[in-house]
């Protein structure tokens, strides 16, 4: 079985699972307790906070634990906007943003905010010049991903951070897919708020964190007992948090090796798959996340392709309309200027550090047959060829 869908879920590292189990079985107490059972969980949690801080060069007290990326993004946007200066009613997001950002943006649009859609180019990279024209002293917040989660293109975050600084707006960055494979320094990068997900660090699901730069004023979204400096109430998921911390530590320690491994696999994939006639890379050719390879095949549809791959024991993603819940093609691919039928034939491969060369070779072996079988059945194929 070959799993190439890291952007949907990652495996949890075995070392991390061992730590989690300890905090479920032995150190199960509530960190808020004054009696002895509270102290080990409290220490474990604070160690995790430090580890996550170290991964992105933040202070431990700048890390707020949440239930995952969706909650972090909700807290980042909904928690910070009430404190931005009066008169700043613009929020800038883009087609390459996390789904939650887009969902919150559409709700904000109903609450009096003007939502600006930053334009992306054919590689799925935000156009800085155009962004410069729409971001100004009426902008409250800019939200961007470090890289497009779908096509992997790294965003011009330096320029956008500079824009945020000049205009006096907050900058939120989605680091979910980036943090396990790219060196991140939130202080140097000028980020005010950053979203992290434990599972994307090869930790357990259901945990995440929000980096809140010291000095950024926030209002909680979940109110209650005042945990996490009052910003996120609810008894902490200690085992999950400890797991996230352990995962972050391993990511930091092994970053160099992991990057090299992923880049090797990605190059192998691109050498093998781009040989297929009528195939094209989606996203930036070089400036992209090491684990992301997004390719499209002319004349065929993604869901059929995915199912045939699944029958061969290979799991990948697609931007095809047929496979999405709302039957709409990938927003990212469409915004890059791809016509509907091209977005249809896209295949998204997202690698995790545990993938191997043999797995890549298996995909390279079966892919040409799948593509030609589906093309033989496609009314678009010889229509374009013959005409």
């Amino acid at each position, binding site marked *: 079985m070959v799993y190439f869908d890291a952007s949907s879920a990652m495996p949890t590292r075995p070392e991390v699972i061992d730590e989690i189990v300890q905090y479920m079985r032995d150190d199960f107490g509530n960190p808020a307790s004054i009696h002895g059972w509270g102290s080990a969980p409290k220490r474990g949690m604070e160690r995790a906070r430090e580890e996550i801080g170290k991964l992105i060069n933040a202070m431990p007290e700048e890390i707020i634990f949440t239930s995952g990326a969706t909650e972090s993004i909700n807290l980042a946007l909904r928690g910070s906007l009430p404190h931005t200066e009066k008169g700043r009613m613009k929020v800038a997001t883009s087609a390459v943003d996390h789904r939650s950002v887009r969902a919150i943006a559409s*709700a904000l649009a109903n609450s009096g905010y003007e939502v600006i859609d930053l334009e992306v180019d054919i590689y799925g990279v935000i156009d800085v010049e155009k962004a410069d024209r729409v971001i100004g002293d009426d902008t409250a917040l800019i939200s961007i991903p470090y890289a497009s989660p779908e096509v992997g293109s790294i965003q011009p975050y330096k320029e956008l951070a500079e824009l945020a600084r000049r205009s006096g707006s907050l900058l939120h960055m989605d680091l979910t897919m980036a943090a396990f494979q790219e060196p991140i320094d939130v202080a140097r990068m000028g980020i005010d708020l950053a979203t992290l997900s434990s599972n994307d660090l090869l930790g357990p699901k259901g945990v995440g964190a929000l980096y809140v730069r010291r000095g950024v004023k926030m209002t909680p979204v979940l109110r209650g007992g005042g945990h996490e400096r009052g910003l996120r109430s609810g008894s902490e998921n200690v085992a999950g948090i400890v797991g996230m911390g352990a995962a972050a530590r391993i990511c930091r320690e092994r970053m160099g090796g992991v990057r090299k491994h992923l880049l090797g696999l990605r190059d192998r994939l691109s050498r093998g798959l781009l040989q297929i006639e009528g195939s094209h890379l989606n996203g930036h050719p070089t400036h992209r996340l090491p684990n992301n390879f997004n390719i499209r095949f002319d004349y*065929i549809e993604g*869901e059929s392709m995915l199912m045939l791959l699944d029958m061969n024991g290979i799991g990948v993603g697609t931007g095809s*309309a*047929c*496979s999405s819940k709302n039957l709409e093609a990938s927003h990212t691919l469409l915004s890059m200027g791809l016509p*509907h039928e091209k977005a*249809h034939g896209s295949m998204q491969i997202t690698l995790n550090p545990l993938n191997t060369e043999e797995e890549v070779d298996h995909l390279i072996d079966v892919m040409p047959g799948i593509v030609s079988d589906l093309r033989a*059945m496609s*009314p678009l194929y010889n229509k374009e060829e013959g005409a």
Partner: protein
Amino acid sequence: MDRLEYNDMVLEHFKNPRNAGTLEEADAIGQVGNPVCGDMMEISINVKDDRIEDIRFRTFGCASAIATTSMLTEVVKGMRLEDAEKVTWDDVMKSLGGLPKIKVHCSLLAVDGLKAALYYYYKKVGVDRPDLKPKDEDEDHHHDVEVNIQDSPLV
């Protein structure tokens, strides 16, 4: 993507589609677009003695589109034209033992493709059948996609 709940018969038709491809010399070819997801379907027929003597299909669409059309071609092959035009998407879906709700529209595409082929066949032999005429592709775009969230102001 979400793993779809396709039953075994649908998967079997998807893996081994019947009558896929084109006909050497088709009497008529119908081509329609799916108004919901934007896919395409093509059905070619040969007619003899008012019966569908042979039939082929090609689709630029999902597994459900492939399976339903495969089933449809099996159902109507050899059928009298007047009976074939009465086959509904519901019949096809039932013969397949059902489809995931979100995939029902793909079976419409199969039936519309057949109707279009019949329309052009009748046209060729001098019979006008406006009731079988393929609809404009862009009509009713995304008409039955459910929206279940209503946005209210954020607090």
